């Protein structure tokens, strides 16, 4: 405890996955007196009260306990994040980043003594992280000490970072996860499938275009980093490529030939979701990775084994995904997606909750995949990932893509 006691309002806890940070944060907030110490876990959606039909009601509930000064600061922060237009929305329909901000600011409104934030802020891009980060750091909430477990420390310019690795060698979890070096030696058939989007437009409702006249060529053997603000249409574009959303004819071409992705969903691109819980449904990890491969004609056994070994899942191959911590569920979801032999992969926040070890392992794996002719689109706010991987930037803004 003395390692991290500090006069600072914000204490950041770096450390590797499975070093015991989450346990430590939970022990910090364990208190007999309720609402004095609060914990905010990996997925903000679990920490929204879930009973209020609108964002406005959710905020109002938490306002009732806050003093005038805190109320003013939080209201100002909400306005910075543009929450005025979301007040009558259902909180569940907000994007991941918006839910994170909502949960965090509502927890701060309760003015706890300690607020433990467990990798929640990793869902925010730098632009969104700065206002709330600065407010906490400069002491706008003097009664609250915030402890933050985060894997993206190299992206923070903070002088109040305290190293914390007290649990580094403890046997806290049942399994030890040591990621081996990337050794994906299986030979895949090298097939290049370049994607061409020709005047692609898409709208969910009439006269409300999300994407407009996008002309773009995506070459396989490359990694693309798709950037854009919340609601810019990143997920929409990903869903179009995966064949989930229907587009007009003559808008999507593969190697110059028109391709109907909607008719063959999931065949052009494998999609790894931001929230792994939406993706995992088998009763065991081995089955999770095996299941889609069964439908493929080629021998899949070696590929499955390879991915189980690479992602360090061999000791937990029969465990139910829901028994695992978030970090591991995310890894299983990634392994299951990448094990599929698809020309393209779309990875939404692949390093959420992951430490640098895993990030560099993933960089190596993705580079290997591109050498085999695969194309990869990454949607991520992690600078560690995107700065250390050779990728082409795509900016999605104002319904258009720029380079």
């Amino acid at each position, binding site marked *: 405890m003395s390692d991290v006691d500090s006069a600072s309002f914000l204490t950041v806890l770096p450390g590797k996955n499975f070093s015991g940070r989450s346990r430590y944060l939970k022990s910090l907030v364990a208190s007999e007196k309720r609402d004095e110490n609060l914990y905010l*876990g990996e997925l903000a959606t679990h920490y929204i*009260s*879930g009973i209020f*039909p609108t964002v406005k009601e959710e905020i109002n509930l938490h306002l009732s306990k806050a003093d005038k000064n805190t109320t003013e600061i939080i209201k100002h922060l909400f306005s910075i994040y543009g929450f005025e237009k979301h007040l009558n929305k259902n909180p569940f*329909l907000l994007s991941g980043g918006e839910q994170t901000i909502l949960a965090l600011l509502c927890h701060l409104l309760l003015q706890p003594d300690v607020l433990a934030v467990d990798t929640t802020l990793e869902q925010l891009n730098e632009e969104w992280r700065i206002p709330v980060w600065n407010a906490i750091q400069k002491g706008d909430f003097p009664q609250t000490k915030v402890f933050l477990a985060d894997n993206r420390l190299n992206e923070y310019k903070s002088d109040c970072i305290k190293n914390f690795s007290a649990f580094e060698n403890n046997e806290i979890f049942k399994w030890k996860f040591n990621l081996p070096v990337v050794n994906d030696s299986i030979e895949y058939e090298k097939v290049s499938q370049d994607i061409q989007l020709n005047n692609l437009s898409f709208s969910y409702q009439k006269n409300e275009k999300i994407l407009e006249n996008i002309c773009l060529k995506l070459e396989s053997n490359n990694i693309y980093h798709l950037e854009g603000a919340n609601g810019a249409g990143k997920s929409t574009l990903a869903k179009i490529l995966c064949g989930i959303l229907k587009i007009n004819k003559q808008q999507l071409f593969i190697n110059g030939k028109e391709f109907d992705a909607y008719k*063959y969903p*999931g*065949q052009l691109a494998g999609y790894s*979701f931001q929230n792994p819980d939406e993706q995992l449904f088998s009763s065991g990890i081995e089955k999770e990775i095996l299941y889609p491969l069964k439908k493929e004609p080629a021998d899949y056994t070696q590929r499955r084994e390879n991915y189980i070994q690479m992602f360090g899942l061999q000791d937990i191959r029969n465990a139910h995904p829901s028994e695992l911590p978030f970090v591991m569920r995310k890894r299983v979801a990634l392994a299951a997606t990448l094990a599929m032999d698809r020309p393209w992969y779309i990875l939404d926040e692949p390093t959420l909750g992951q430490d640098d070890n895993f990030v560099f392992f993933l960089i190596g794996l993705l580079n290997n995949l591109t050498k085999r002719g695969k194309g990869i689109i990454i949607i991520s706010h992690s600078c560690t990932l995107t700065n250390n991987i050779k990728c082409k930037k795509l900016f999605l803004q104002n319904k258009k893509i720029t380079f």
Partner: protein
Amino acid sequence: METNNLYINPYIRVLFAVFGIAGTLLINRISLLICFYLVVILPLFICGQQVKKHIQLMLFGMLPVFLSFVLLYILVLKGNEGGWNFVFMRTSKLILITSIIQLTLLIPAPFLIHTFQQWRLKEESLITVLGSFTVWTDIRFRAQQILTARFSRGFIRKRTFTEKIKQFPPILIPLVIGILRTSTERAESWESKNILHLIEINQTEKIKTPLLLNVFVCLSASIWMITGVLVFFIT
């Protein structure tokens, strides 16, 4: 003080439900039942912008009931005299009662808490009832996401109706697990936030009642009730 044209006073909602259902049970004339539906119920759904939900309920709830009555009449009563009248009367009454309950409970999101608090719901009961109204958005959104994930991983190769039906069991597993996980974490969060206390001290905004709409609802329900009593005793 907030004004909204769709706001029906919580007490008038209850009065509408009680008088509406009582009047429907007392009246045994199909023409009157249809008249009440067309003059009062349908305009209220249109006014509240809830026509789509109402049509869905009629199609998936009332139509099967009507068809069951018809089958019952043909197979069991074997077309005895008076049977068709029985079928139409029961169906009309069921449609009216269901529509009245639907109208009473279709509370626009911004008025939910205020309405429940006016109905004297407190603490755990308020959380339970509120949760049962709001949780569906979460579940629907999750189910959609899981289906999307299955499409994107190539599990569903054809977009046929039978393929979609086949997806229900696999969707249920992650859906139930996800809901259980969320529920556990949310319950812990409620406990640590002491949410009961927060709700207790929370002051909801007062809402100004749109007079015309509320007078119409109140009057129509009262007239319907009186008509029901008169028809019942006269006939």
